[in-house]
């Protein structure tokens, strides 16, 4: 028996449909020193199945942008449209992978992954089957009965991935999810993310300040300016996958982006 999957628009199959519209988004906060503009007139669109990296230095508002798309905070002005309807609150069509650990500490790996299915009307067997599949996809079948506190940082983020991917989100929002991992785990997680993405075909907005991470992952990089945060440049990466980390083309891109970030 194969688990039922929602129809996800196939990538690279001729017509690419824009599913996510970010339209003239601005946001600011009132602080003790007056009004601070964090995002200014941010606009871009994402195709179904596209992997977009949002690259910028800390404090450029990229996390705020992600929170608005996630529906956790309302935009100051402008709007976010998913499939043509405005985003107003958090929901399982736009799942977030947080930077810090947000697993439920009282649930085992398996129970954490099954959490989102609890409220859904499906029979037990098909739920169990899906949990099994996603445990396998992130390579944690042997650790199913572990509690989060017994896992390493990388393993926790794998559980976090499986826990939301099982809900078949259209858009996956990732807020520097691998920033606190050591270099080797980070590389492993990037490879895992790419293989999951190729298998499941969801759209990803990936926020990062790490140039090499953006270059290895993204179809397109949005380079953000600081205070107020705006998109300075859009860079398409038409590089073949899988990408060699040390290849000349990648290093060229990296050099260019480093230069741009310094300016």
């Amino acid at each position, binding site marked *: 028996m194969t688990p039922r999957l929602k129809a996800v628009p196939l990538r690279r199959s001729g017509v690419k449909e824009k599913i996510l519209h970010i339209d003239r988004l601005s946001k600011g906060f009132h602080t003790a020193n007056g009004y601070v503009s964090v995002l200014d007139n941010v606009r871009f669109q994402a195709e179904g199945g596209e992997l977009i990296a949002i690259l910028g230095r800390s404090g450029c508002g990229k996390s705020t942008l992600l929170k608005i798309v*996630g*529906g*956790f905070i309302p935009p100051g002005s402008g709007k976010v449209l998913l499939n043509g309807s405005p985003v107003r*609150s*958090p*929901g*399982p069509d*736009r*799942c*977030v992978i*947080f930077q*810090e650990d*947000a697993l*439920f*500490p*009282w*649930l085992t790996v398996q*129970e954490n992954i099954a*959490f*989102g299915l*609890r*409220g859904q009307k499906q029979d037990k067997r098909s739920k169990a089957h899906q949990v099994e599949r996603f445990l396998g996809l992130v390579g944690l079948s042997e650790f199913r009965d572990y*509690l989060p506190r017994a896992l390493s940082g990388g393993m926790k983020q794998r559980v976090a991935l499986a*826990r*939301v991917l099982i*809900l078949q989100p259209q858009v996956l929002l990732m807020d520097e999810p691998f920033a606190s991992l050591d270099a080797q785990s980070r590389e492993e997680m990037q490879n895992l993310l790419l293989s999951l993405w190729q298998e499941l075909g969801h759209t990803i907005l990936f926020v990062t300040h790490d140039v090499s991470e953006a270059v290895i992952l993204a179809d397109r990089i949005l380079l953000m300016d600081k205070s107020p945060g705006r998109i300075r440049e859009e860079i398409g990466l038409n590089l073949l996958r899988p990408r060699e980390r040390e290849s000349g083309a990648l290093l060229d891109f990296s050099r260019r982006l480093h230069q741009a970030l310094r300016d």
Partner: protein
Amino acid sequence: MKPMDERNRKGAWALLPWAIPCTFLFSWCMVSAAGLVPRYLLPDPLHIAGTGYSYIFGTPEAGPYAGRFLNDAGASLLRVGCGFALAVAIGLPLGILSGRLWVFQRLMGTTVNALRAVPGITWLPLALVWFGIGMKTTVFLVALAAFFPIFLNAAAGARQVNPLLLQAGAMMGVRRLRGTFAILLPGAMPNLMTGLRLGLGISWAYLVLGELTGVPNGLGAVIMDARMLGRIDMIVVGIIVIAIIGRVSDQLLQSGMKFCFKSAGRMA
């Protein structure tokens, strides 16, 4: 470091909790045998044991307290049970509401803290006037005293739940009501447990207070009665019985919670 459970199971360590009671008992025997303390102030352990046996199982010569144990313990357990249940039923939901919702915190903070400053014993005269001697007064005092630790810990627990967990729930499609039971309560569980345990502990204290006022049965009543008859041995038996029942009920509360809620067992 080894997990606590693993150590608990190891042979010699299992005896550690008994070290203090045994040392104490031993010194008591010594002091009595040496005749350092007059018997009317502190009877020797054997005498106490005899009284305790007679109190629990009844003896042919039948003193005033022989065989009363079940009756007394039953009456006291019922009073503690009712009072504690009442405190939980009111304190837990109100505590969680005031921990999560600003309005409730604002509404109740001042009142609760003002009432908390009043020592529980102060309510005794008023309770006697309102409810008379017996069950109702005791239940009232127990519920009142147990309310505060339960309420305050529930509020603190609900306030301290990691907001990221609630956000994660929201994005996974968990609505407010289900989120309360699936995320908020488990997340606050360590504090809820602390509140319940403190509440149950203080319940026993106020039980005795409520029963000191001329109730015919109950463990507190027996102690007060024994004082008037000069039966020091019976007072000590009463104290020991309350200590044991209190310890056992705390243990039962913990294992019951762990049995019912995953979060209680896994986040202790």
